[in-house]
Protein backbone atom coordinates (compact mmCIF):
# COMPACT_ATOMS: atom_id res chain seq x y z
CA UNK A 1 0.00 0.00 0.00
CA UNK A 2 1.43 3.40 -0.95
CA UNK A 3 1.97 5.98 1.77
CA UNK A 4 -0.65 8.72 1.96
CA UNK A 5 0.67 12.29 1.52
CA UNK A 6 0.78 14.10 4.86
CA UNK A 7 -1.89 16.68 4.04
CA UNK A 8 -4.14 14.54 1.88
CA UNK A 9 -7.34 15.87 3.44
CA UNK A 10 -6.35 19.49 2.84
CA UNK A 11 -5.17 18.64 -0.68
CA UNK A 12 -8.41 16.87 -1.62
CA UNK A 13 -10.42 19.69 -0.10
CA UNK A 14 -8.57 22.41 -2.00
CA UNK A 15 -8.42 20.57 -5.35
CA UNK A 16 -12.11 19.74 -5.35
CA UNK A 17 -13.10 23.16 -4.08
CA UNK A 18 -11.32 24.85 -6.97
CA UNK A 19 -12.79 22.40 -9.44
CA UNK A 20 -16.32 22.95 -8.17
CA UNK A 21 -16.11 26.68 -8.90
CA UNK A 22 -17.64 27.43 -5.51
CA UNK A 23 -14.82 29.68 -4.35
CA UNK A 24 -13.57 33.21 -4.89
CA UNK A 25 -9.90 33.87 -5.50
CA UNK A 26 -8.65 36.91 -3.61
CA UNK A 27 -5.53 38.73 -4.80
CA UNK A 28 -3.80 41.74 -3.30
CA UNK A 29 -1.73 44.33 -5.16
CA UNK A 30 1.62 43.07 -3.97
CA UNK A 31 0.91 39.56 -5.22
CA UNK A 32 -0.50 40.95 -8.43
CA UNK A 33 2.80 42.72 -9.11
CA UNK A 34 4.81 39.70 -8.06
CA UNK A 35 2.92 37.48 -10.51
CA UNK A 36 3.94 39.75 -13.36
CA UNK A 37 7.52 39.91 -12.15
CA UNK A 38 7.73 36.10 -11.98
CA UNK A 39 6.00 35.76 -15.38
CA UNK A 40 3.17 33.58 -14.15
CA UNK A 41 -0.54 34.40 -14.05
CA UNK A 42 -3.78 33.43 -12.34
CA UNK A 43 -4.37 30.68 -14.88
CA UNK A 44 -1.13 29.09 -13.62
CA UNK A 45 -2.12 29.69 -10.01
CA UNK A 46 -5.55 28.17 -10.61
CA UNK A 47 -3.90 25.12 -12.21
CA UNK A 48 -1.61 24.65 -9.21
CA UNK A 49 -4.53 25.00 -6.78
CA UNK A 50 -6.53 22.47 -8.76
CA UNK A 51 -3.78 19.88 -9.22
CA UNK A 52 -1.13 20.68 -6.60
CA UNK A 53 -0.54 19.26 -3.14
CA UNK A 54 -0.76 20.95 0.24
CA UNK A 55 2.71 20.55 1.76
CA UNK A 56 2.36 22.64 4.94
CA UNK A 57 -0.67 23.52 7.01
CA UNK A 58 -1.13 26.14 9.70
CA UNK A 59 -3.72 28.63 10.95
CA UNK A 60 -3.79 32.41 10.53
CA UNK A 61 -6.52 34.27 12.44
CA UNK A 62 -9.03 31.43 12.02
CA UNK A 63 -8.07 30.94 8.39
CA UNK A 64 -6.40 27.80 7.11
CA UNK A 65 -2.90 28.75 6.00
CA UNK A 66 -1.67 26.27 3.44
CA UNK A 67 1.45 26.01 1.28
CA UNK A 68 0.64 24.41 -2.03
CA UNK A 69 3.21 22.86 -4.34
CA UNK A 70 2.49 21.92 -7.93
CA UNK A 71 3.34 22.35 -11.59
CA UNK A 72 1.61 24.49 -14.18
CA UNK A 73 0.44 23.27 -17.61
CA UNK A 74 3.86 24.42 -18.84
CA UNK A 75 5.62 22.27 -16.22
CA UNK A 76 6.79 25.27 -14.23
CA UNK A 77 7.12 24.25 -10.56
CA UNK A 78 5.29 26.73 -8.32
CA UNK A 79 4.96 26.84 -4.56
CA UNK A 80 2.52 29.32 -3.07
CA UNK A 81 0.75 30.18 0.15
CA UNK A 82 -2.99 30.57 0.41
CA UNK A 83 -5.34 31.46 3.25
CA UNK A 84 -8.61 29.59 3.10
CA UNK A 85 -11.89 30.59 4.71
CA UNK A 86 -14.30 27.75 4.12
CA UNK A 87 -17.33 29.56 5.56
CA UNK A 88 -17.24 32.20 2.81
CA UNK A 89 -15.59 30.01 0.15
CA UNK A 90 -12.60 32.28 -0.18
CA UNK A 91 -9.00 31.45 -1.11
CA UNK A 92 -6.60 34.35 -0.70
CA UNK A 93 -3.31 34.14 -2.53
CA UNK A 94 -0.82 35.40 0.03
CA UNK A 95 2.58 34.56 -1.35
CA UNK A 96 4.37 32.97 -4.28
CA UNK A 97 7.20 31.13 -2.61
CA UNK A 98 9.06 29.67 -5.57
CA UNK A 99 8.79 29.51 -9.34
CA UNK A 100 11.13 27.10 -11.02
CA UNK A 101 11.36 26.80 -14.79
CA UNK A 102 12.92 23.42 -15.44
CA UNK A 103 15.45 23.05 -18.23
CA UNK A 104 15.08 26.62 -19.42
Amino acid sequence: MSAQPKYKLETDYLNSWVESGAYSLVVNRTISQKLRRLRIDLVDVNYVLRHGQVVRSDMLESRGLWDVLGSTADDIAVELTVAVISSVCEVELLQIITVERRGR
Partner: protein
Amino acid sequence: MTINQHGAGGEITRVVDQFDAVDLGAPFKVVLHKAVRVTLKYSIPDTDGLISQIAISRVLNKRKLSGKEIHFIRKAIKAKQKELAQRIEMSAEHLSRCESGAMVMSPTSEKLLRIYALKTAWKLQKLELCEETRKLEQMLDRLFDMMKPVSVFDPDDVLELHFNRVPKTPSNGEDLPPNIDGDGHWNADELKSAA
Protein backbone atom coordinates in the same frame (compact mmCIF):
# COMPACT_ATOMS: atom_id res chain seq x y z
CA MET B 1 -17.02 54.39 -13.09
CA THR B 2 -20.02 53.57 -10.88
CA ILE B 3 -19.14 51.93 -7.62
CA ASN B 4 -21.64 49.93 -5.57
CA GLN B 5 -20.68 49.90 -1.93
CA HIS B 6 -21.49 47.05 0.41
CA GLY B 7 -21.08 46.62 4.13
CA ALA B 8 -21.03 49.21 6.87
CA GLY B 9 -17.87 50.28 8.67
CA GLY B 10 -14.51 48.59 8.49
CA GLU B 11 -13.30 47.63 5.07
CA ILE B 12 -15.68 48.80 2.35
CA THR B 13 -16.23 46.30 -0.39
CA ARG B 14 -17.02 47.72 -3.80
CA VAL B 15 -18.38 45.79 -6.73
CA VAL B 16 -16.92 47.61 -9.70
CA ASP B 17 -18.78 48.05 -12.97
CA GLN B 18 -15.80 46.96 -15.00
CA PHE B 19 -12.69 45.11 -13.93
CA ASP B 20 -9.74 44.63 -16.23
CA ALA B 21 -8.51 41.14 -15.32
CA VAL B 22 -4.87 41.60 -16.34
CA ASP B 23 -3.55 39.04 -13.85
CA LEU B 24 -5.16 36.25 -15.85
CA GLY B 25 -2.38 36.82 -18.36
CA ALA B 26 -4.62 36.70 -21.43
CA PRO B 27 -3.00 38.20 -24.56
CA PHE B 28 -6.27 40.04 -25.15
CA LYS B 29 -8.34 42.23 -22.88
CA VAL B 30 -10.59 40.47 -20.37
CA VAL B 31 -13.16 42.77 -18.76
CA LEU B 32 -15.40 41.48 -15.99
CA HIS B 33 -18.68 43.32 -15.47
CA LYS B 34 -20.22 43.79 -12.03
CA ALA B 35 -18.66 40.61 -10.71
CA VAL B 36 -15.46 41.56 -8.91
CA ARG B 37 -15.29 42.82 -5.33
CA VAL B 38 -12.52 45.29 -4.73
CA THR B 39 -10.97 46.61 -1.52
CA LEU B 40 -7.21 46.79 -1.28
CA LYS B 41 -7.52 43.33 -2.76
CA TYR B 42 -9.82 42.02 -5.41
CA SER B 43 -11.91 38.89 -5.40
CA ILE B 44 -12.91 36.92 -8.50
CA PRO B 45 -15.71 34.38 -8.04
CA ASP B 46 -15.37 30.95 -9.70
CA THR B 47 -11.98 31.62 -11.28
CA ASP B 48 -11.90 28.13 -12.74
CA GLY B 49 -15.22 28.62 -14.53
CA LEU B 50 -14.16 32.07 -15.72
CA ILE B 51 -10.97 30.71 -17.29
CA SER B 52 -12.93 28.07 -19.22
CA GLN B 53 -15.45 30.66 -20.37
CA ILE B 54 -12.67 32.95 -21.62
CA ALA B 55 -11.25 30.06 -23.66
CA ILE B 56 -14.69 29.35 -25.15
CA SER B 57 -15.25 33.00 -26.07
CA ARG B 58 -11.85 33.31 -27.72
CA VAL B 59 -12.11 30.14 -29.82
CA LEU B 60 -15.53 31.26 -31.03
CA ASN B 61 -14.10 34.61 -32.12
CA LYS B 62 -13.09 34.53 -35.78
CA ARG B 63 -9.84 36.48 -35.41
CA LYS B 64 -6.84 34.24 -36.18
CA LEU B 65 -5.17 32.90 -33.07
CA SER B 66 -1.71 34.28 -32.37
CA GLY B 67 0.97 32.09 -30.78
CA LYS B 68 0.41 33.72 -27.39
CA GLU B 69 -3.31 33.08 -27.67
CA ILE B 70 -2.77 29.41 -28.54
CA HIS B 71 -0.54 29.16 -25.47
CA PHE B 72 -3.15 30.88 -23.29
CA ILE B 73 -5.98 28.68 -24.56
CA ARG B 74 -3.93 25.54 -23.96
CA LYS B 75 -3.28 26.62 -20.38
CA ALA B 76 -6.94 27.56 -19.94
CA ILE B 77 -8.08 24.08 -20.96
CA LYS B 78 -5.42 22.63 -18.65
CA ALA B 79 -3.59 20.72 -21.35
CA LYS B 80 0.12 20.05 -21.54
CA GLN B 81 1.82 20.80 -24.86
CA LYS B 82 2.39 17.13 -25.68
CA GLU B 83 -1.20 16.19 -24.89
CA LEU B 84 -2.75 18.94 -27.01
CA ALA B 85 -0.37 18.26 -29.90
CA GLN B 86 -1.38 14.61 -29.88
CA ARG B 87 -5.08 15.48 -29.88
CA ILE B 88 -4.79 17.77 -32.88
CA GLU B 89 -2.49 15.44 -34.82
CA MET B 90 0.59 17.63 -34.62
CA SER B 91 4.06 17.12 -33.16
CA ALA B 92 4.80 18.79 -29.81
CA GLU B 93 7.74 20.59 -31.45
CA HIS B 94 5.49 22.04 -34.13
CA LEU B 95 2.95 23.20 -31.54
CA SER B 96 5.76 24.72 -29.49
CA ARG B 97 6.95 26.70 -32.53
CA CYS B 98 3.37 27.87 -33.20
CA GLU B 99 3.02 29.01 -29.58
CA SER B 100 6.30 30.92 -29.68
CA GLY B 101 5.29 32.63 -32.90
CA ALA B 102 8.10 31.06 -34.93
CA MET B 103 5.52 29.30 -37.13
CA VAL B 104 1.96 30.03 -38.14
CA MET B 105 -0.59 27.32 -37.50
CA SER B 106 -2.40 26.11 -40.62
CA PRO B 107 -6.11 26.99 -40.87
CA THR B 108 -7.05 23.28 -40.69
CA SER B 109 -5.00 22.68 -37.54
CA GLU B 110 -6.33 25.86 -36.01
CA LYS B 111 -9.89 24.77 -36.63
CA LEU B 112 -9.18 21.40 -35.02
CA LEU B 113 -7.56 23.13 -32.06
CA ARG B 114 -10.59 25.39 -31.67
CA ILE B 115 -13.01 22.45 -31.67
CA TYR B 116 -10.89 20.53 -29.18
CA ALA B 117 -10.51 23.57 -26.93
CA LEU B 118 -14.24 24.25 -27.11
CA LYS B 119 -15.09 20.68 -26.19
CA THR B 120 -12.62 20.61 -23.30
CA ALA B 121 -13.47 24.03 -21.89
CA TRP B 122 -17.15 23.21 -22.10
CA LYS B 123 -16.56 20.04 -20.11
CA LEU B 124 -14.46 21.86 -17.52
CA GLN B 125 -17.36 24.17 -16.77
CA LYS B 126 -19.29 21.30 -15.18
CA LEU B 127 -22.64 22.66 -16.25
CA GLU B 128 -25.88 20.85 -15.60
CA LEU B 129 -26.31 19.05 -18.88
CA CYS B 130 -29.43 17.85 -20.61
CA GLU B 131 -29.38 14.43 -22.25
CA GLU B 132 -28.71 15.78 -25.75
CA THR B 133 -25.79 17.94 -24.65
CA ARG B 134 -24.30 14.98 -22.80
CA LYS B 135 -24.58 12.92 -25.99
CA LEU B 136 -22.84 15.63 -27.99
CA GLU B 137 -20.08 15.69 -25.40
CA GLN B 138 -19.65 11.92 -25.61
CA MET B 139 -19.53 12.02 -29.41
CA LEU B 140 -16.83 14.68 -29.37
CA ASP B 141 -14.91 12.66 -26.79
CA ARG B 142 -15.09 9.67 -29.08
CA LEU B 143 -13.86 11.71 -32.00
CA PHE B 144 -10.82 13.06 -30.18
CA ASP B 145 -9.93 10.34 -27.72
CA MET B 146 -10.58 7.02 -29.37
CA MET B 147 -11.17 7.37 -33.06
CA LYS B 148 -8.36 6.46 -35.42
CA PRO B 149 -9.59 6.39 -39.03
CA VAL B 150 -9.12 2.90 -40.47
CA SER B 151 -7.99 2.94 -44.07
CA VAL B 152 -7.52 -0.81 -44.56
CA PHE B 153 -10.77 -2.81 -44.69
CA ASP B 154 -12.45 -5.54 -46.71
CA PRO B 155 -14.22 -3.88 -49.66
CA ASP B 156 -16.91 -6.60 -49.45
CA ASP B 157 -17.64 -5.59 -45.90
CA VAL B 158 -20.46 -3.12 -46.54
CA LEU B 159 -20.70 -0.34 -44.01
CA GLU B 160 -24.15 -0.39 -42.40
CA LEU B 161 -25.45 2.32 -40.13
CA HIS B 162 -28.77 1.76 -38.38
CA PHE B 163 -31.22 4.36 -37.18
CA ASN B 164 -34.56 4.41 -35.44
CA ARG B 165 -37.16 6.98 -34.54
CA VAL B 166 -37.37 7.86 -30.87
CA PRO B 167 -40.39 9.64 -29.40
CA LYS B 168 -39.61 12.96 -27.72
CA THR B 169 -41.38 11.92 -24.55
CA PRO B 170 -39.63 9.08 -22.69
CA SER B 171 -41.47 5.76 -22.74
CA ASN B 172 -40.74 4.66 -19.14
CA GLY B 173 -38.77 1.73 -20.52
CA GLU B 174 -41.71 0.03 -22.25
CA ASP B 175 -41.48 -1.04 -25.90
CA LEU B 176 -43.48 1.34 -28.08
CA PRO B 177 -44.66 0.65 -31.64
CA PRO B 178 -42.53 2.23 -34.42
CA ASN B 179 -42.96 5.97 -34.40
CA ILE B 180 -43.24 7.03 -38.04
CA ASP B 181 -45.30 10.18 -38.09
CA GLY B 182 -45.25 11.22 -34.47
CA ASP B 183 -43.27 13.80 -32.58
CA GLY B 184 -39.75 12.33 -32.36
CA HIS B 185 -36.21 12.37 -33.64
CA TRP B 186 -33.74 10.05 -35.36
CA ASN B 187 -31.41 8.04 -33.22
CA ALA B 188 -28.43 5.94 -34.32
CA ASP B 189 -28.65 2.33 -33.27
CA GLU B 190 -25.08 1.99 -32.04
CA LEU B 191 -25.20 -1.77 -31.40
CA LYS B 192 -26.45 -2.70 -34.84
CA SER B 193 -24.20 -0.15 -36.57
CA ALA B 194 -21.11 -1.50 -34.84
CA ALA B 195 -21.90 -5.12 -35.74
